[in-house]
């Protein structure tokens, strides 16, 4: 929200813009995995109550991780409501919502994604800390009343997770041998999303929490992430669908899982561990230290980022082995 920050140039803007894919994909796939694991557990004979409690437990653990590991990495207080806390709350909500028929979950999610911009929280007082914080958590991300800050409100992202959940339940009924048949559907969804994004930005009304100010590339791409506008979600989730189609396409190629794809798969198998460790690795300073040990220009920063990826890759591989060796420990949640 707010006015456009001064980007130094188009490269800087695009480097920031490319990171926009992370949160929607992360939350969407969290919903997908939640659905798949629920089906798996039900198949193993676990009771509904056990599954509900387990989801709640996971949600609470995510809230704790946000408060004590993620928020300090950003130099924020433990009250900061970030992406991990948002997923945690969504998990807790889904521990109950999941009992609804999948088609109802899909309908609710679509309604949320398409209509959350009309939500008005005027009935919640904004002159008390609890009212303010409640607004931040529900739908009004901001940094204006420390420590009650946050950028990932639950309502819109619950819709994204619901879409992911619906995709997961759909996948669970799909035969594994026919997985390649999903490729055209994913491609079509991705293309339709991107076309819809173009229309929404062109019309410059509904779906744009940040209206397009001009006709430069930056003007077209500068969409509201906090909270996520329809334009933002169409672009990012559309891109995600295309990436998934590309992944399926590559999956049958020889040498898949080696080289760069191997690194990406290793990082993707331990997403939360990767996320938590990358924050502290790239932060390069202890908790409480206000300034980094050094700062770099753009190109060395990219080299530094690549080196970091290599370190994280090795760390994720080791962590995967550790997690496999201790399947019932707390590591199962990370």
């Amino acid at each position, binding site marked *: 929200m707010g006015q456009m920050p001064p980007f130094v140039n188009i490269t800087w803007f695009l480097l920031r813009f490319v990171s926009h894919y992370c949160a929607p994909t992360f939350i969407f796939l969290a919903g997908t995995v939640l659905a798949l694991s629920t089906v798996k557990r039900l198949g193993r004979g676990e009771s509904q109550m056990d599954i509900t409690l387990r989801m709640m437990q996971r949600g609470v653990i995510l809230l704790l991780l946000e408060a004590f590991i993620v928020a300090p990495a950003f130099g924020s207080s*433990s*009250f900061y409501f970030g992406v991990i806390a948002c997923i945690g709350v969504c998990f807790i909500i889904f521990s109950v919502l999941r009992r609804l028929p999948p088609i109802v979950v899909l309908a609710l999610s679509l309604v949320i994604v398409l209509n959350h911009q*009309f939500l008005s929280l005027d009935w919640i007082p904004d002159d008390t800390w609890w009212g303010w914080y409640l607004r931040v958590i529900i739908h009004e991300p901001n940094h204006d009343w420390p420590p009650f800050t946050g950028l990932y409100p639950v309502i819109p992202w619950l819709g994204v997770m619901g879409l992911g959940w619906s995709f997961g339940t759909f996948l669970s009924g799909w035969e594994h041998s026919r997985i390649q048949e999903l490729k055209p559907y994913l491609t079509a969804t991705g293309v339709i999303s991107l076309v819809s994004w173009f229309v929404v930005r062109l019309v410059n009304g509904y779906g744009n929490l940040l209206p397009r100010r001009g006709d430069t590339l930056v003007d077209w791409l500068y969409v509201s992430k906090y909270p996520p506008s329809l334009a933002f979600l169409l672009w990012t989730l559309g891109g995600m669908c295309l990436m998934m189609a590309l992944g399926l396409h590559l999956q049958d190629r020889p040498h898949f899982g080696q080289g760069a794809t191997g690194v990406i798969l290793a990082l993707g198998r331990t997403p939360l561990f990767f996320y938590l460790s990358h924050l502290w690795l790239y932060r390069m300073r202890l908790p409480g230290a206000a300034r980094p040990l050094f700062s770099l220009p753009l190109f060395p920063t990219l080299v530094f980022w690549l080196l970091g990826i290599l370190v994280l890759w090795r760390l994720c591989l080791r962590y995967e082995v550790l997690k496999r060796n201790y399947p019932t420990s707390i590591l199962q949640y990370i």
Partner: protein
Amino acid sequence: MDVGAGATRQEFSLMSVALVLVFAGVITGFNLMRNGPVGPEAVPEYEMYSNHSFSFSHLKGMSFYNGSLSAPTSDEDCGYLVGVTEEGCLWPQEIIVVWELAEEEPMLNESLEKVYVNELMDNVSCVRHACTRENVTYHEALYENFTALDPEGESAPGIVAVWWCNETERSFAVFMLSEGGYSCYGEQEEAFLELLYSFRCHYGRWPRRGRLPETVMDTISVSLMVLFCVGFTFTYKMEKFPNFAHLSYATVGSMVSFYLVRFMRLNPYDTWPFAALVGGLLGMVLYIGVVRPVGDSARGWNRDIILTFTFYIIAHTMVSVIGMFNYWTRNAMGAPSTGFVLRGGDFRWGSLPGIALIGPIACGLLVVALHFFLTRTRMGIALRATAEDEDLAATLGIDVYRAHLSSWFISGTLSALAGSIITLWGGMGLGATDDTFVMVMAGSALGGLDNVYGAIFGGIFVSMAKKTLGNLLFMVFGLAIKPWERLLPIIFLVVILMEMPNGVTGIDLRSSRLVKYVQARFFGQIHGSDGGGVDD
């Protein structure tokens, strides 16, 4: 139907998905008709300006430029800001803040005249409208709307406010002159008033009182470090785990002092008993609410590790709680509680402030009192017995619960008192305790984590060594070493734990080769159990 999981493809049939899309489309269409395309109207956004020891919030998109007035004082005491809105914003186009030192409280009417004559404009006459008396951060202010008329008959509306801040002894003038025919009575006035009512002119400092001399600061710093180390060691000796929240008591103590001085108008020294009491009670609450329950459910290393992590989290949470307190004092009471110094309430002792004398004496007396308490009173002896062997102490009839409770009260009291003393000496901030805590751990480790008296030595040594080593490194490396200074406490801690894990009090001097050599060389005999000679 197996709701919620394992949906089949039939559940996502083309028809059902189409129905869902229609349903979502209808709801969205209804909302679009009702609310329009953009949704709820956006409210103006504000951001904070904070510099020159004052702060205020202003409309987002407005940039402020510094200027200095021709006065023989630093720019913090005297200067002006020109705020200009970004291209595209409708209002306000320009806001100017002027501030300067005043030896005596100026008459506000005269200040207002001065603004019109000196600051506002040349060759312009002003038609002044209703003058109102308002409050700006507890100071009485004059606030007035006016219309400026230039010789050609062009008019421009404006607003001006003046007040004197007795805490920083500066007079302030804030004014806005509208250009381009915009009114000063609608949104412009709202933006101006937002700035005015959010103004905090005494942002935690007394500019007329200089810094304390280095030697005085070092003495107080060493005394406080001793207090912290003794308290930390005391808890470790009793409970066998490092209390990461030990310095949180200090922050709480400083906040108690801040509150009582700022809002209850107490003398800073009078707040010490209250701060000590709150710190002690907090310690007792932590023991009853955390340490005891954990001790009941876990034993040995498990207990120690759980408590160590728990207190790390408590320390972290305390920072957030203090942050909330700071927000409350800043916004509801108009006085920020970070970076404040209560030195303005101190008395003078010759050329020195009172804290230069009282601080070290108070710390010394507290340590001596603790010594007598531990060695001469029944409770103190019970405490030591409990620390040595809790089970044995219990069989001897000592109330170990009371002993633990007392130890938490004492360590909380010592730390909170130290925090209260800090408020008279240097600024207290949210993250101020992080570095200090590592120093405290280093001091306690150096003195021997089991030895309260060793902590006195450790506190003195670490505090002085940090200062000396910092200066030495600065002489060698210059400014480049500054960013690395924060690592010094950690390096101390690592070196001490590697070389002297039991601290200096754990070193057996009789087995030292140097001591043996001196004895053999100068006294002709060797003490010690090994009876061996001196190695060459």
